[in-house]
């Protein structure tokens, strides 16, 4: 399978609704420091279900907030990332993860998960991703900025944990 395109909405430095793609076999994301390249990696990791502890911010901080407004009210109260994936059989599947205000608390946010625009529970979402070979817990196919050298610096015990995770 392969990634076709992303749709990001009010996510990190991405204001409003933006289409990112199409992604080819070998696609490079380029641009100046601080422009939003790693934020796209965060978007991909986010929509695949990586826990916010491993991203650079809480759910609240992942929502777009602009440079002008000073108060929290300027921040949109909802954001999402959608990843459109083409399976090995040529079928298009849309994975979406939405940030919405929590019903229980005014300042808290939660994630909702959708496959082809139908809301699903996280395990169904994760299982579907696994069926396409996308194993998010191990995260071996995601190399965050500054992380590559630490893969080589892992202690023998850490490598064992890595092998346990992938097996």
């Amino acid at each position, binding site marked *: 399978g392969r990634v076709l395109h992303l749709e990001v909405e009010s996510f990190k430095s991405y204001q409003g609704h933006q289409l990112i793609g199409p992604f080819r076999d070998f696609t490079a994301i380029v641009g*100046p420091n601080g*422009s939003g390249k790693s934020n796209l990696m965060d978007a991909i990791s986010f929509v695949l279900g990586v826990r916010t502890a491993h991203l650079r911010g809480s759910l609240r901080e992942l929502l777009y907030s602009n440079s002008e407004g000073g108060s929290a009210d300027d921040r949109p109260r909802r954001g999402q990332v959608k990843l459109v994936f083409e399976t090995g059989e040529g079928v298009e599947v849309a994975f979406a993860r939405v940030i919405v205000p929590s019903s229980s608390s005014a300042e808290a946010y939660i994630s909702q998960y959708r496959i082809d625009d139908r809301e699903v529970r996280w395990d169904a979402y994760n299982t579907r991703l696994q069926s396409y070979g996308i194993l998010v817990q191990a995260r071996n196919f995601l190399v965050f900025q500054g992380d590559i050298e630490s893969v080589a610096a892992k202690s023998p015990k850490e490598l064992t944990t890595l092998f346990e995770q992938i097996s």
Partner: protein
Amino acid sequence: RYDTFMAAFDAVKDAIDGIFKELTRSATHPMGGRAFLSLESTEEPFLAGVKFTAMPPTKRYRDMEQLSGGEKTVAALALLFAIHAFQPSPFFVLDEIDAALDATNVARVARYIQSHTRPAGDGDDEGFDPNPDAVLDPVARRRAPRQRFQSIVISLKDTFYEKADALIGVSRDADSGASTILTFDLSPFAE
């Protein structure tokens, strides 16, 4: 538990040296370097450590700690790609993995990625291998089909991103600080 662990370990152990050689060979060192994985304990391997050793060409055995920044990056990539041989995810997302690489190593990593990026379900992987070096190793090629994965890389080095099929350019609006996207198809310019 022993079986699943050893299945993973053996598969990665078999793949790592070939991949490391592909990432380190050059005109002066056509054989490349040497990399291997070993178990600290063979009865209960998941309770002890897994030792990863990588020796760039002509370098004698030294702790991974002693390797330079660029040498560690190449070793780490070899390990990631070897893990992929066991657990083939359909795509990789790599954020500035070239930060510590000199021009020669950037070219080797870019060529490795280029030779592995074809869509899944592209028919017989063995029929078409764009990496001429693989011809040197017919036995390995028949034993394990060449891995394929889609690559999404973030890079500041034009020597790296010029090898891509398409560019996604990101820029920041000077007033709002919001990011905007411009895509550029490189395939008309591919050699």
